[in-house]
């Protein structure tokens, strides 16, 4: 476990909180028990609509479990959870999900645009008639919606190629388009920057930030390395040792907070180039925490 961070000034000095709207995500005294073991418990968390939230923490701490609870895929063992003021449920069109690193097989012969389209109507039963739908209003509007999100992520050039032939960065753009296409007001992204090169990490995090600020979409992004997203982050959610701590990045990524969270001395170092490195006991210093995973 080592988190690299940056103390540089944040681009947005406060979250664009819209008063009167229910929180995008709210957890109250929440806990999840899997096979007799609490992943985390007593979690209180509130995310305002339009916030860009980074979810950090060591491997196996329950970051993906937190996302699954928010998606309604995994029920809470205790406490309450709501999304946009309503109880969580699977298939909520207001929530777009990008799971942890999916590798599309190079032999998967389905166009990228079809994958995006599945995000819109893939859960509907019955078969549309491709020849008829061209002349019908509903399907035509859906096709325009697909084109719009593909344009939004800048994937027009390769949308008609098979998904398996695209590069990691291109696939990630397509998957973000898929997550957005159903009219999502919140993006739930599980390590979207993992296994991308630095250029693509910056491009994808810049894209997510643009969607967040221009469309007011709430973003929950699980990251190993906070550096590419730190300038955009409104709130940091740190998951460790069965607990969840949240707050502004400068408040959470501090020696005192993280030591208390881990229950063991943890040091937050500041480098001359404005980065912060979190060092646990007996662990090598590393910018890229996910190196430790492999």
């Amino acid at each position: 476990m080592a988190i690299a961070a940056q103390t540089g000034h944040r681009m947005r000095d406060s979250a664009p909180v819209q008063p009167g709207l229910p929180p995008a995500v709210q957890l109250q005294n929440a806990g999840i028990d899997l096979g007799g073991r609490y992943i985390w418990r007593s979690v209180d968390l509130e995310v305002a609509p339009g916030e860009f939230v980074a979810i950090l923490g060591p491997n196996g701490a329950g970051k993906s479990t937190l996302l699954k609870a928010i998606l309604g895929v995994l029920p809470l063992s205790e406490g309450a959870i709501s999304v946009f003021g309503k109880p969580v449920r699977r298939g909520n069109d207001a929530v777009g999900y990008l799971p942890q690193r999916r590798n599309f097989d190079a032999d998967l012969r389905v166009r990228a645009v079809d994958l995006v389209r599945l995000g819109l109507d893939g859960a509907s039963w019955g078969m549309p008639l491709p020849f008829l739908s061209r002349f019908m209003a509903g399907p035509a509007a859906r096709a325009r919606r697909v084109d719009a999100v593909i344009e939004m992520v800048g994937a027009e050039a390769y949308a008609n190629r098979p998904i398996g032939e695209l590069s990691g960065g291109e696939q990630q753009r397509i998957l973000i388009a898929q997550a957005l296409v159903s009219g999502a007001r919140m993006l739930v992204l599980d390590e979207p920057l993992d296994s991308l090169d630095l250029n693509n990490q910056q491009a994808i995090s810049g894209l997510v930030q643009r969607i967040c600020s221009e469309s007011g979409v709430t973003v929950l992004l699980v990251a190993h390395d906070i550096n590419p997203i730190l300038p955009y982050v409104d709130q940091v959610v740190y998951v460790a040792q069965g607990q969840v701590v949240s707050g502004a990045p400068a408040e959470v990524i501090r020696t005192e907070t993280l030591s208390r969270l881990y229950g063991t001395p943890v040091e937050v170092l500041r480098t001359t180039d404005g980065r912060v490195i979190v060092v646990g006991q007996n662990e090598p210093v590393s910018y890229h925490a996910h190196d430790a995973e492999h």
Partner: protein
Amino acid sequence: MTPSTDIGPSWDLLADLQLLLQYHFMQNALIVGTIVAVLGGAIGYLIVLRGQSFAAHMLSQVGFPGAAGAVLVHVSPVLGLLVFCVGAALGISVFGTRLGGGGRRESAAVGSILAFSLGLGLLFFRLFSGSAQAIYAFLFGTILGIDDKDVLVALVTAAVCLAALAFMFRPMVFASIDPAVADAKGVPVRLLSVVFLLLVAVTVAETVQIVGTLLIFALMVAPGAAAQRMTSRPYRALGTSVLLAVVVTWAGLAVAYFTGYPVGFFITTFAFAIYLLTRAAPTLARIARPGLTPALGAAR
């Protein structure tokens, strides 16, 4: 080539067609062949998309001990077929399926169940002390000896399975290529993978007695695989798969009729030839036009 003495193809297609259809058994063979090809081609697209060709292979084989066992205990072979095919499909679902189907665990479960069922088939066959002819008919079919009742069975099976397939096509494609997101979107991914295998099992159980293990398996994989090489649009690939299956069936029946060699050989050969062609096409295109990059050919 050993053409029959009284019939032979000419360059007059209409006359050939009349020759082909002059016997009732050929009419029935063409009707049932077409029905099975449409169903096999449609279900085959999803089998190949899901990476479950081996599971399809297994399901097309396990009916044999089922039918043999049914004969032993004096019940209808169709019942034995159904019990074994459905049982094997459920077996794969219990032991092998991860979210979305396919994968290492499934292929290990498939291999184990397949070997065991063939062992059972050997035992039943020994106990039955039946003729090798019965096995031969089962494996390679009797498409030239189909009666009108078989036509009806094939028609009803195909109608039911195709309707089910059409109903769940989109969620099935979603669950096959992107199970985690499909699950979050509310698609019953695990249920669909069980239902899909059951659909393959029923298709096989009802058609294997008519056209044989070899034909149903041939029509379930090669056309779907070739179609996915030809287009990456799901609906177009589904249609292409059905079309290829129908074309190889007709061609196989016609050529077999005029040459006197087995139907199954020609249908599998034509299916394989189309598959080979689609696999070799990118390489051939590169050789023909050395300047063309592979990526350009991929945008179909």
